């Protein structure tokens, strides 16, 4: 198998790990990290699959650049909210109760 495919599979694995983390972890900071891993996994797949025959494709690269910026934005929001929650409750985990007020 080509190195691009290797990258692609790695991307898939990263995505799976990240997704599982985002679902399972309780601590919000860890979930933010997990989400970033997930996102980068998707980006790796996007770039590597697109250049399976070796030659770089600028379109997915540009899209990945966009994806990264979007991920940065989301991370910023997530961290700010986590920090706010920490100020209010002193903890970094979301309770799952709906009635919570």
């Amino acid at each position, binding site marked *: 198998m080509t190195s691009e495919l290797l990258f692609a599979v790695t991307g898939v694995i990263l995505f799976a790990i990240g997704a599982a983390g985002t679902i399972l972890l309780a601590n919000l900071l860890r979930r933010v990290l997990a989400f970033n891993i997930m996102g980068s996994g998707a980006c790796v797949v996007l770039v590597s699959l697109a250049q399976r025959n070796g030659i770089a494709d600028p379109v997915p690269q540009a899209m990945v650049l966009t994806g990264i910026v979007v991920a940065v934005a989301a991370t910023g929001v997530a961290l700010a909210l986590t920090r706010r929650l920490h100020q209010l409750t002193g903890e970094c985990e*979301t309770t799952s109760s709906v009635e919570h007020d």
Partner: protein
Amino acid sequence: MTENIALIGVFTVPLLWATLAFLLGPGRGAFVAITGSVVQLFLALILARSVLVDGPLNHSTGGWGAPLGIDLYVDGLTAAMLLLTQVVALPIFVYARSYFAPGAHAARHFWPLAGFLIAGMNALYLANDIFNLYVTLEIVGLAAVALIAAGGGAGQVAAALRYLFAALLGSGAYLLGVALIYGTYGSVSIATLTPLIDVAAPRVVSIAALLMFAGLMLKSALFPFHYWLPAAHGGAPAPVSALLSALVVKAAIYLCLRLWLGPFAPLVQAAAWLPGVLGAGAILWGSAMAIRTPRLKLLVAYSTVAQLGYLFLAFPLLTPGAAVLGAVTLQAIAHGLAKAAMFAAAGIIIHSTGRDAVAEVAGVAERLPLTLFAFALAGVSLMGLPPSGGFLAKWLLLDAALNAGHWALVAVIIAGGLLAAIYVFRVVRQAFLNLPEELADRQKHTGRPVPRVLEWMAFGLAAASVLLGLFSVDLLKLIAVGNPL
């Protein structure tokens, strides 16, 4: 050219006024927002008219055209959703202007965020490019999260975070799907992909489709992915809840519909029963929770979970030749109007009683008749009773289900209507009770006087959702333009 300007304006105008509102500073910008929304409504009407007359419309940004560039595409469905968004947004903004107390912390960044939210949705309806759709999804998601969290207590921030992670998980899955599609076909333009994807497509395409649908269902809070919605929509300030419940969830569902009927149509027919089953689950579960919760806004939020179920319930009926798309879109529109009205009314009631509790609604029939009337009218549409838009949609759905011999769907739709009646009248009949003394005294302190404009906005939205049921010929004609059914 006019329709092209309308097409571009419908998302550039809100982008502009959102930025201006931010520039003006915290709490400012209501005026630009409302002015802009009037313009948007006008543009959306121009678009709808041109689609109805000259058929679907395509706009290639940068003049390159797909697959190199990004295309924007308007057909009847798009035009209808654009109309819904502007029609709901305008009164809700007028409502919000009087709802937020001056200097309220929740209001400091409401206008710019709301502007980006609307712009993101309008762009989402137009984009004909699965990667561009990803970006629009993120605008909508982040703006929504911020609106929920703004100036709220721990409960709101926690709800916002839960929603944020649900949204991120969803868009992550969607993005991987896009990556796989691009890797397989070398394009992200829906127009380019649709002819390429057929039943013989490699299995990776099915996986990609699965990822994208799963992500979107997570964002649209389809049962059992609804866990984030009640707290988020029930906890936010009333105007925000109205925007989220009426519009934002619809955006993700619209996208499901687009992909379902468009590029992935050859792959999904086999799995059509799945969204149907989940939709049925949503209707029953959401209604059951709405019947039980003691909090007023939470009741309305759970009713959203239930009502969204109808939209997915229809997926098994979306077979070529059926007019179900009209019914689905009509349900989306009717629910949008009704739910916005209901959250607006709930906001007023809570504003005047000072407590978010169904038990405290007693006496509202006497104090706020117009608000209660709005709540009840919206309820009529949610229950699917005539002559509301919800009724017409339900009628069309039942008709389709019966003709297709799907008796289970018929049963669920009928049952859903009755359950809705239970939770709507839980509130209405409570409102007719005379207010007990002790509550009256307490509410003197907790409650605040209600500006009339709030009541009229709620009433207007509710009335629209009911009248929709009497004048839908053109709307249904519009929806039918250029859709593959």
